[in-house]
């Protein structure tokens, strides 16, 4: 008999922590990780609502989000490696040049 509010609060908490992570951290990898956190928060809400209405669509959509997160992480990390190989740094601040 858990009111759905609990799940929404949990999602909100993770979302906020993710946003803080994205904003405050300088290390690009940790920023990517916080994005994963945000996506997870969204997933929790989706699954909670799909469970509330008994319709599986929410879980299927969560599945798509995970697939997308995988794609995004792969490309993101690829960019980081390429960047690290040229500029020997992983900090967001130093990624200021568009073309070097």
């Amino acid at each position, binding site marked *: 008999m858990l009111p759905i509010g609990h799940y929404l609060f949990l999602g909100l908490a993770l979302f906020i922590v993710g946003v803080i992570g994205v904003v405050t951290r300088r290390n690009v990898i*940790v920023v990517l990780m916080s994005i994963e956190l945000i996506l997870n928060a969204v997933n929790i809400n989706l699954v909670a609502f799909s469970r509330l209405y008994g319709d599986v669509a929410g879980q299927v959509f969560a*599945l798509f989000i995970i*697939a997308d997160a995988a794609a995004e992480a792969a490309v993101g990390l690829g960019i980081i490696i390429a960047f690290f190989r040229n500029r020997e740094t*992983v900090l967001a601040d130093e990624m200021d040049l568009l073309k070097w």
Partner: protein
Amino acid sequence: MPLRILMLDQVIFYFFAAIAVVSAILTVTRRNVVHSAIFLITALLATAGIFLQLRAEFLFIVQIILYVGGIMVLFVFVIMLVNLDVAVRQLQFARQKWVAMLISLALAAQVGLMLWSTGKMPGQGMPVLVAAPVDKLPPNSEAVARSLFESYLLPFEIASVLLLVAMIGAVVMAKKRA
């Protein structure tokens, strides 16, 4: 609804929710990137636990295999390849600490207000989750599979194209500047 299933559900939920939030906070605050990666893994496993509590087993196992077993392995690999000691010494936290606080406060206020007001609205009230024992529910993975391939076939194809593009992008990106 027998008391014990109720109690069990709440206990499990609070347990996993606590772990998720705490390890999420630790992920963001840890100075050492590998520690934050480990805590992120615990956070993801906790959310997987919550999916289980919501009777979404297929999602639970996909989260473990794909998220933790796949994406996080990628993260840990990249962390290993990018030699840490350079990153650790540099200052980890940007100065926009106050900006972040401001944003999160605004967000919290907005959603908090919304949740609080739904409770107040007459009649409708806070929708309550019906906790049902496992056997009553249709087998989860079959249901997900049926809807995935029947009603959501187009998004499924688009997702596969998306993954293909991402794969090619990652390979090209990581290729040595030959």
